[in-house]
């Protein structure tokens, strides 16, 4: 009961700002509406008992990626873009594609029986379990991640500084 109430509140917290994100005429408001959506997703992770992922979601998405987006908005158009039309002429196409995809996916979901496990409890201390997984089973993922980070750092610096 309580779980369902929390789930409903969080769903609204995710979906309503998400609608603002994709429809607002003001790009800064779009970017700021991203924050409640991301925090709602954090709430989902908590309900799913993925505590560490929840913390990281706030730290990276809300604390870093949103800030990066806001920076770029302020460094490019900022408020100057407020008068400019923000949407292109593809609205009918966009609506069709989104609704059709949603319909298709929901249809598929409703017809599939997932192999839901009846037993097993999530690890109580998820950071510990994740650390163990990274250091043993997923060690290759872990090391390659650092390469991905390195490449994206180098690439982004090259792209952003090109003309100096």
């Amino acid at each position: 009961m309580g779980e369902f109430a929390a789930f409903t509140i969080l769903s609204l917290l995710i979906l309503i700002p998400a609608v603002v994100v994709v429809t607002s005429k003001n790009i800064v408001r779009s970017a700021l509406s991203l924050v409640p959506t991301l925090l709602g997703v954090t709430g989902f992770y908590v309900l799913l008992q993925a505590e560490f992922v929840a913390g990281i979601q706030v730290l990276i998405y809300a604390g870093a990626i949103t800030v990066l987006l806001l920076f770029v908005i302020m460094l490019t158009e900022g408020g100057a873009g407020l008068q400019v039309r923000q949407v292109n002429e593809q609205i009918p196409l966009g609506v069709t594609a989104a609704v059709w995809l949603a319909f298709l996916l929901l249809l598929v979901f409703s017809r599939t029986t997932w192999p839901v496990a009846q037993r097993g409890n999530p690890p109580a201390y998820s950071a510990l379990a994740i650390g163990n997984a990274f250091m043993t089973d997923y060690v290759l993922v872990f090391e390659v991640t650092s390469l991905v980070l390195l490449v994206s750092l180098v690439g982004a610096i090259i792209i952003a500084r090109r003309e100096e």
Partner: protein
Amino acid sequence: MQVGLGHYLVISTLLFCLGLYGVLTRRNAVAILMGIELMLNAGNINLVAFNRYVAPATVSGHVFALVVITLAACEAAIGLALVMSAYRSLETIHVDEINVMKW
């Protein structure tokens, strides 16, 4: 009422389609990136939800989610670097006006 896997899948589907709509209809490159972030978040909800309901004792889904978050950060960094670069050479970040391949 119990919250099951299906509930999470429905919400993540809706979020994904909202993101898709944003990507298809926005002119502003930064707004398109925001749409992509929404879609990645929807994917992440699925990863963690499947982990919880299909294999609750493991953390593989959490690990994938972390990797996706990492990739989202890298994608945002590179994508926004491209936006900055386009803005500096073409004075616009509206993707329908960036239509020349070489300046």
